[in-house]
């Protein structure tokens, strides 16, 4: 178990479509972090006010459409540097549950850096 485990959960529209998984993995590697990217696609939809939307109410996080960037590393400065670079270039997860699945040390660090960019 790594000292810092951070899950960044980005939902559809949160990140640019042009951002490729390999770019994230390479960027994490430059900061001595291991990264895994996983995608979840939930086909459940409903119509609200003429808009077809994904129904997420009462759905477990794991089932909601999202991109999960799972980062692990041993050193705070590595995680800190990566998250600064990533949040500066894109954005931090928009909701508090966007860090769900992180360990306590990773979550606290990611939250502080996200606060910095608010």
């Amino acid at each position: 178990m790594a000292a810092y485990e951070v899950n960044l959960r980005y939902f559809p529209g949160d990140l640019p479509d042009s951002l490729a998984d390999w770019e994230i993995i390479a960027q994490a590697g430059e900061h001595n972090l291991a990264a895994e990217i996983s995608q979840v696609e939930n086909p459940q939809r409903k119509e609200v006010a003429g808009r077809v939307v994904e129904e997420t109410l009462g759905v477990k996080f794991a089932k909601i459409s999202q991109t999960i960037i799972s980062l692990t590393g041993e050193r705070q400065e590595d995680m800190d540097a990566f998250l600064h670079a990533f949040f500066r270039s894109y954005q931090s997860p928009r909701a508090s549950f966007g860090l769900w699945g992180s360990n306590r040390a990773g979550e606290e660090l990611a939250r502080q850096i996200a606060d910095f960019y608010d």
Partner: protein
Amino acid sequence: MKILGISASYNEQGNSAILTQQALRGAEEAGAQVELVRLPDLTIDDCRGCALCLYRDRECFLKDDLHFLFAKMREADAFILGTPCHFQEANSMVKRLIDRSFYRTYIGDLQGKAAAILVSHSKRGWTDRVFPQITSWLRGLGVHVVNQSLFHSQYPSEVLLYRDQLEKAHAMGQGLVRALREKDYTFQGKEGLCPLCHDNVIRIRPGRGEAECADCHIPATLTVADDGGIKVTFAPEALAQDRYRSESMARHFSYHSKPALAYTRATRKRAKEGKAALEGGFAPVKPARPAEVVD
């Protein structure tokens, strides 16, 4: 064609109340059926922030006049909102209305309507947040803001001195009818920097050194113009990043709001661990009510 005037002034002869009446008159003369509601006549409670409206997909449980107002807004094709600006923003009744509009923003039943905003203010330079506040609310509801204007005057009814202001309000009502009739929601007011909200508030994103519209969050480029002034440019493709677009609002509710309920459940155990922070809480001081006063 129905237009609803919403007056937020306590004073029936206050400046924004008079201006709202003028705009309604203009709309009526242009052929609209008009109706007026005064927010001070309504009892609208504070939003409790429970989000039950979203989680249970139903109207707010508070039984007050908000439901009457929203029914009137649904019946109308457009709104004329008149409010005084006491300190940088709309008055407290409008703020309360904005807070209580969360569910409307979600279900989108006011989408496609149009609005004009008239703001009376007493000090020039003290209105910075009033339009971003009101237009973001209306844009979040999917309402086309076709006009917005400040009206400067200091004492109640002072606007009666200024024929140009009365005529302007009148013309705003007529312009709203024209927009509805022609289905042309092109902004008729004073253009601001942002092509979407028409305001001039640009912020530099913390830690990123990039500029954006402070309200719409669309990125901007700042350059020094030939005359030495700052030039703000919004790339046409950046407009797609408008957070008040219908698709963006839908995503906001699906992905950033609704899952909070599952998060609450998932973190219940951990939240209990933190309950020690609630121990020894301070009892709030309250004013003595007449019955409690002991001589």
